[in-house]
Every structure is written in structure tokens, then in C-alpha cells.
């Protein structure tokens, strides 16, 4: 492929003057070495000087140029156009990472993103000897535990791809903040692990509200796997004994309880154990399910074959306490 004709629909909106957004359409010839940012530049430089977007380093470091191409979060300076064409065909739509936060065209107001970032206290908290007699050495093994969480460029790709943040709960810290939290809870030099973990343990805002959809992992242009960091934070909550005894933590623990009893999951028992008295609110739904043959009664609960094996493995492989 030397050059390809592509139709690009570009989201346009000026918060100060416009009532509704509109899309401008451009027919462009795309060459194989162009990235999305090149196209943003060409639109501004060759077609409409009022078109507005953020860009700075052009090297995937500053995190300014995140936009969405056909709904996919992308770092414009890193994403090749031919890959987008292969994925979505010859009609592409460029939109800001979040339409409801638009200031102008591709530029969004990232205030909530930065507020949540700040809530993680994104700096090392440690008692520093001002007159050290030797280096504070961090071994490679300890450094690896951070799993490149310190490579996050705060582009927001994951945050604006998160359905909890964007569709249901604006209070939720979201994946970028959790990556930042983990960057410090996994840092051997940091002295504030417990307090940091308490912040991410809070129901409604913290890690427990994650729906495990992996949108963040899919979106991250630096391949940092935010979902994995969220799992690590969960693990640290139990390891450090910070975790609160509530519906969310009992829900995670309940799986082990059920597996060691039946091998398979006892769905009813899991809900009852997790919810405590709250289980009552599930009665109308449970009744509907029961009417349709979807509830297994405790006395007819199936068990895995070779349950002894499972029991033994649970006994000898458990690493966590609640």
C-alpha cells in the first residue's frame, strides 16, 4: 500500500460558543508511515486552523495527545493510521477521549482525572536521612515489583475507557489512579503503604468497584496492564490486613469457602455470606429465579468429583488470610 483514501469524521465542539457538537468530514490520502497525530496536524495546517487538540512531545512520553479513534482510546503520536484502517476500514471517526468533558474539539477538561491522581498522594513518602553515609540501594528484584507502573504517562486512555468512571460512578478513582497508588505501595522505600491502601479500599471509590472488564488494560498505550495492578492492590489489602470486612471483601473470600466445601461455587451461600443481612434484598430476584428452575437448594447442591483432592489443595496452597 502506497497511499489510501480515507474518510475522516472529526468531532468539533466549542464549549464557549456551541450548543451542540458537529462532525467535519475530510477525504484524505494517507501514506503508510503516517500516525494519527500527523493527520490531526494535516487537518489543522491544511484545512482548518481553528481545529484544536493537545500535542507536545510526539514521542509517546508526554501523554498529551490521547484521543479516541472509532471509540478506541489511542495515543495519537504512537498509533499508525494503517493499523486503524486495518481495524476499522476506510471511514474513521476522531473524537475526544471524553465527549462530556470537552472544552474544544479534541481538548478535554482533565480536572477529575488529576483530582483523583492527587488523591493517591503521587509522591514518595519516606523518612529521608538528610546526611546519608551510603547509598539507599533498591535491589533489582524489589524494583521489578513495581512492574513498570512508574512508566505511566497520565495520558488518560485507560481512565476515559473505564465504564465505571464514564457510565456509572464519577466518584470512582479509576485505573490510572490505581496504577499510581500501586507504583508507591509496591515501592520498598515508601513508608505510607497502609494509609495508601486504606484510600483504595473505600467502597464506592476504591478498587472494589472495578467491574473487571479489562478496558483499561486494552487501552493503555504503554502496556502497563492496569487491571493487573488493581489485582495486586486487592492482594496487598489482605496481606497488610488493611481490608475492611464488608460485602466486597467477603465476596472475594467467599469463593475459597465455597470451593473447599463443594469444589464448585455455592451461588446462594456466596451471596448470603457476602451480604449478611443484606441478602434479604435479593429475595424478589431469587424468587423469580426459583420459579424458573434457576436456584439449587442447599440440600441438592452438586459437588465436584474428587473433592478430597480440592480440599487438600486448598489446605496446602492457601497464601492469604482474612
Amino acid at each position, binding site marked *: 500500500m502506497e497511499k489510501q483514501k480515507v474518510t475522516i469524521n472529526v468531532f468539533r465542539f466549542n464549549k464557549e460558543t456551541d450548543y451542540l457538537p458537529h462532525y467535519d468530514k475530510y477525504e484524505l490520502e494517507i501514506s503508510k508511515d503516517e500516525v494519527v497525530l500527523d493527520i490531526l496536524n494535516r487537518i489543522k495546517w491544511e484545512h482548518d486552523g481553528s481545529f484544536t487538540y493537545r500535542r507536545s512531545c510526539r514521542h509517546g512520553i508526554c501523554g498529551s495527545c490521547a484521543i479516541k479513534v472509532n471509540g478506541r482510546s489511542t495515543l495519537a503520536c504512537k498509533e499508525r493510521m494503517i493499523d486503524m484502517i486495518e481495524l476499522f476500514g476506510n471511514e474513521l471517526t476522531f473524537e475526544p477521549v471524553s465527549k462530556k468533558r470537552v472544552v474544544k474539539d479534541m481538548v478535554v477538561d482533565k480536572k477529575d482525572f488529576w483530582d483523583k491522581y492527587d488523591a493517591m498522594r503521587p509522591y514518595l513518602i519516606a523518612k529521608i536521612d538528610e546526611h546519608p553515609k551510603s547509598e539507599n540501594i533498591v535491589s533489582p528484584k524489589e524494583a521489578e515489583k513495581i512492574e513498570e507502573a512508574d512508566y505511566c504517562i497520565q495520558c488518560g486512555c485507560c481512565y476515559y475507557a473505564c465504564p465505571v468512571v464514564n457510565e456509572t460512578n464519577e466518584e470512582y478513582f479509576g485505573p490510572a489512579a490505581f496504577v499510581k497508588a500501586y507504583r508507591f505501595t509496591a515501592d520498598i522505600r515508601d513508608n505510607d503503604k497502609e494509609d495508601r491502601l486504606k484510600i483504595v479500599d473505600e467502597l464506592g471509590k476504591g478498587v472494589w468497584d472495578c467491574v473487571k472488564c479489562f478496558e483499561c488494560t*486494552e487501552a493503555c498505550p504503554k502496556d502497563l496492564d492496569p487491571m493487573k495492578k488493581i489485582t495486586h492492590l486487592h492482594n496487598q489489602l489482605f496481606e497488610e490486613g488493611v481490608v475492611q470486612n464488608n*460485602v466486597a471483601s467477603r*465476596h472475594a473470600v467467599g469463593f475459597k469457602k465455597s470451593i473447599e466445601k463443594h469444589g*464448585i461455587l455455592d*451461588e446462594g451461600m456466596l451471596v448470603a455470606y*457476602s451480604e449478611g443481612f443484606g441478602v434479604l434484598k435479593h429475595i424478589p430476584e431469587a424468587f423469580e429465579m426459583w420459579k424458573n428452575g434457576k436456584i439449587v437448594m442447599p440440600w441438592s447442591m*452438586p459437588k*465436584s468429583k474428587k473433592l478430597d483432592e*480440592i480440599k487438600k489443595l486448598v489446605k*496446602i496452597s492457601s497464601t492469604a488470610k482474612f
Partner: protein
Amino acid sequence: MSLKYALYTGCTARESTPELMKSTLAVAKKLGIELVVLDEASCCGASHLQDFDDFLSLVLNARNICYAEKHNLPMITICNTCQLNTALTKERLDNNPELKAKVNEKLKEVGLEYKGSVSVRHFLYALIEDYGLDNIRKKVVKPLSSFNIAPFYGCHNIRPSELHHFTNKTKESAYNPTSLDELIEALEGNSVDYEHKNKCCGFHADLQAPHTANRLTGNAIVDAMDNNADMMVTPCPLCHLNLDVKQHAASKEIGREVHMPILHLPQLIGLALGCTPEEVGLNHNVTKAEFV
């Protein structure tokens, strides 16, 4: 063509979605696919156990795969989250000999060894990759041509795509998945294109964040409704539980009455292949599919 798989049913197929079990077996029978049900398997931890105890989750999932290896059969799953946890375990152990040795040290205590010798795929991809859409098309006796069917992919079959690509020959894009659409077309149905088809149903936050779960479920159904879907189909029983059972709660949450029959993937296939509604367990669906 003779295909034979080790079936990891997961827990829901044995409890809250008996129709998934029935319809899977019915479809396999129609297509002449032999299934060996892994009755020894435990729960996969459903994406929650590893939050509490990651190592235990690995050991239990590795044990499940061991039983497919014992039969020397490719393993198939019928739940996206089982697929995620099983495939993730396989990927981690196959790529990390040290971790594999640690897990095998435990498995040895019960006389098992994880080798990594069998594949782990969702039934959807086993059908597409091994049986073939063209061959399925030939078996259709009740074409679904009068129905607009909205595919709901479910997160854990398509994300993370790195894992999906490790597992499947069908290199599906997480942003533009096509396998379910193609399957619907093979059954001569009209697949509905809508924004939420690759989005999340919220199942994993059902207990601790019901508003989140209900809203995501509601948003998905409404999107399908607004694109003229007659029904939705999903390869995941957890998505199915949210989409099918929680329509009342979802309606309340989003402030709009939703009504949408939701079919499990094998229910849809089974109907097109000529199974009766009873054979695919439609009587268990909470939101009734009146058109059948």
C-alpha cells in the same frame, strides 16, 4: 468430521443457568461433537478468588486443566469468565517455568502434574475454528432470517486481546469483534450493530456496587433496543444472568422500561439447528422469548 472436547462447564451451568448446560449438550449432539464433561473440576474463582489469594487460584485452575490433559483433549469452556481465568492460568504457567514448578509442587501432592499440553478455548471459538461457520450453515434447518439479533460479546472472551490472541486462531479485535456477528449470519439471522456489543454488563460488581452493575446492564439493553434488536445473544452465562434476570432492576436504575429476551449462544444455535425450545431450556429464561 469428528470433534471431541473436554468440557469445563463452570458453576453457573450447574446451578443458575441450567439452560446453558442443556443447550450446549443439545448443540453438540446436533453437530456430532463429542463432549467429555470434567466433573472433577472446581470453580475457577470467577475473577474474585485471585483478589484474595492469587496462588490458590492458579493451583485450582491448573488442576482443572490437568483433567483435560489426562483425557488428552482440547478443553472448552462455556463461560467467558471461566475462559479468562483458565486461559490466564495457562498463559502464566506456560510462560513462567518457575511459577509452573511452584504450582506443580502442590499438584504433585494429589498426584497431578500441569503440563500445558492442551488448548483452552471458549466453545464459540472452537465452533468457528474447528467446526467452521460454513459447516454450521449447512446444518441450519430453521433459519433465523426474521430476527434482528444483537450479539453481546462479554468482556472476558475478547479482553485482554493479548490473552485472546494467545488462545485463539480467530484473532479478534477487542474494539471491532466479528465472530458472534458472523455466527448469527451463518444461522441466517440479521446481526445488529450497536455500540455496547463489546461493552461490560457489570456482573462482577453486582453485590458491592449494584447501581454500577444495573446501569451497565441497562445501558447495554437499551442500546440493543434502540437498534431494533428482537433479542440479544451472549456466550457468557454471567452476562446472561445480568441481562436476563436483572431487567427489572436495570429499568429502575436507568429510568426506562427495558424488555429484551436474552439467549445463550448455544440456545440460539440450537433453535436454528432444529432443537425444540425445551431442548435448549428456554423455559428457564426469566425474560421469556415469546416469539419462539
